[in-house]
């Protein structure tokens, strides 16, 4: 029996803020101190591929509020969706040890993994459009660089700020054609209204580029449920105007997906469609052809090994993942990075 490819559309990286700083364009580096209030000194969490000594990360204002008086550190451990600690995981696979991740994926039997940012970036959409856009740009530079260590196994999801319309274009011009890119997430904080013209423009930029939209729970406010987002896209007639447009739902609870089911799958007939990532072959009964498989590694459930076994046997989610990976921006559309950008935090 030939082993079917195990394609995981949801693994996480959690880059230390230092790594974003390093990848940031000049204006953001120079203005880094202004972002300092949102950085928390963080003690590493063992067994999840974290850094092996203290590092900084962006956290929500609420988490900053928990810090002890006079201390730049938030209480440790920060809320982290840790399902299981594995002491064999190499340090820093969440940060900059891509080769360590490749070894871990091989040991686990995952052939390809699409990477998303764990908490950190999600807290930043309240920073202001310019700072937010620059930080997402730094992340995009970081994550594509991370994936370059194993382009066959590692894929990146670019992150866009919902209100930075001009940035969306230059960002995709800059990174969209990178061989690691599997799609784009547009962040959806509560402050973005349900009829936002800017959001429509940003989403259209993604659709035009032919890239998959990853609608991820962690980057969406409570109001921006999959039905809300899909209906927004429909209201903008994006699926009609871009029949290839594919939306991948990632990180949404399976019982919620079941509840929303009637609203989820109505999509104009084209090659585009709505796909949903779930954890096991039994999670999306009757909708197997709309399924993607998500491990959530390294924040996965304890029975990951069995799940992988089942995925390999059934090929569950592979077809959906392949269609996402086929959505590509032609390399010829890449542009050179912007030389200077305005900053206002």
């Amino acid at each position, binding site marked *: 029996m030939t082993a079917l490819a195990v394609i995981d559309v949801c693994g996480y990286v959690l880059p230390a803020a230092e790594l974003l700083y390093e990848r940031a364009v000049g204006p953001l580096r120079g203005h880094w101190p202004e972002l300092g209030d949102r950085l928390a*000194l963080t003690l590493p969490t063992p067994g999840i591929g974290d850094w092996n000594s203290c590092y900084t990360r962006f956290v929500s204002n609420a988490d900053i509020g928990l810090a002890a008086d006079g201390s730049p550190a938030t209480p440790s451990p920060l809320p982290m969706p840790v399902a299981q600690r594995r002491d064999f995981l190499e340090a820093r696979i969440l940060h900059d040890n891509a080769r360590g991740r490749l070894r871990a994926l091989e040991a686990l039997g995952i052939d390809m993994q699409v990477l998303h940012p764990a908490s950190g970036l999600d807290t930043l959409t309240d920073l202001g459009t310019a700072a937010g856009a620059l930080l997402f740009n730094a992340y995009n530079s970081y994550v594509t660089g991370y994936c370059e260590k194993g382009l066959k196994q590692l894929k990146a999801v670019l992150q866009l700020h919902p209100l930075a319309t001009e940035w969306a274009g230059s960002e995709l011009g800059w990174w969209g054609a990178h061989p690691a890119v599997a799609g784009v997430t547009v962040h959806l904080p509560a402050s973005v209204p349900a009829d936002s013209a800017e959001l429509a423009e940003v989403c259209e930029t993604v659709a035009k580029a032919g890239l998959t939209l990853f609608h991820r729970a962690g980057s969406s406010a409570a109001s921006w449920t999959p039905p809300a987002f899909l209906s927004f896209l429909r209201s903008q007639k994006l699926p009609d105007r871009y029949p290839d447009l594919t939306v991948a739902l990632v990180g949404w609870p399976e019982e919620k997906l079941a509840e929303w089911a009637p609203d989820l799958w109505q999509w104009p007939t084209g090659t585009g469609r709505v796909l949903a990532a779930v954890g096991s072959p039994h999670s999306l009964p009757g909708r197997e052809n709309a399924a993607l498989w998500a491990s959530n590694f390294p924040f996965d459930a304890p029975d990951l090994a069995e799940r992988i076994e089942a995925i390999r046997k059934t090929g569950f989610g592979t077809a959906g993942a392949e269609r996402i990976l086929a959505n590509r921006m032609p390399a010829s559309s890449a542009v050179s990075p912007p030389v200077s950008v305005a900053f206002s935090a």
Partner: protein
Amino acid sequence: MSENTVAPISRKDLAALQLPVLEASTLPPDCYHSQAAYDAEVKHIFTKEWNCVGRVEDIPNPGDYFTKDIITEPVLVARDGDGVIRAMLNVCRHRGCKVVENAGTVKNFKCPYHGWLYALNGELRGAPEFKETVGFDKSTFGLKPVRCEIWEGFIFVNLDPEATSLADRFSEVSKFGFEAYEVGTHINIHRWRFELKCNWKTYVENYIEAYHVPWVHAETLGATAASLKKVIYHPDITEQQWDLILTPGPSMTLHPSHVPQFRQAEKVKQLPDKYRGLPVWAGYPGFAVIPMLDCTLWHTILPLGPDTMEIVVGIAFPPETGKAYLEGDEKVRELCDAYARNQEKIMGEDNDICERQQLGLKAQRAAPGRFCKHEILAWKFDNWVAKMAYDDQPQGGGAVQPARAAALNAR
């Protein structure tokens, strides 16, 4: 260097210094202002020995740091997120810029030149635009670590990676009752820094002899020549790098009323008689700590040049007092400030006398003097400096002989 010369001191002068204390001559005045002596001391002492740079309570929280230049070597001391205090060379590994200044609280150290970003433990975390640089491995470009040890709340650094540990050098201190004072728990509340126009050795000699006290501190310490009789020097107490001078009796407080205003450590009362009193512990090259009944006084000395030096003096109180002071308790503040004002007067007297001594030492015809019995530790210290820094021909017999000191105490 001629055959008969041990630079920067002549063999004759060195031999005279190495005689038993009551037969010996003092270090020649040249050694207090010549560039050769200074260079030798920097090379063989200050970049090789443990220097105290501050107290742990100076950096109580994660991200707190301070900087300190040990002569030419910029050092950075920081508390990491996990509470560990570390010292590093404050020199960027990119192109050598000094990374941070003064003191403060940060989450990272950022070089002001091209923005390299270091973690609190010195690891290089961000090197912008270095992705393409061939064979560049960030993990090998962290800030250079500097040896750092904590002793009784004091932070010591040593620029010599090969140096033996401070703990090994101070291990015997506890045998002589130091721990009873609970200095490690004290909280520093006042600190003074002076740049003085004198050679660092004048100041060290000053605090290890009580001979000057009745004259220099007649008013402030109420001392008389008679009280000198009581002072006991302990030149043979240890082979380790520290000395003890003890004025037996009920010890003292720095409060101007001479009555302690704060809690006294219980264990001090249980010390054997021979260690009860006012002790001055002098750790070479430039550290001294004087635990008193209800406070601790400490000094650190560093040369700034052949005839200039820096002294930092601190006064620390038992934790509850220190805490109340920092929280702004007015009564405690008033009392502690009275201690500090009193200390300022005493320090002023020592500062003035050392600068005045330097003026004389610079005279062309100034010549070596002699020691009296109260100056045995000054003699021992001068011999230590000569042995460490000047005597690069060991066969010349530069070592301090403890036996000689013992002979003196027997007189």
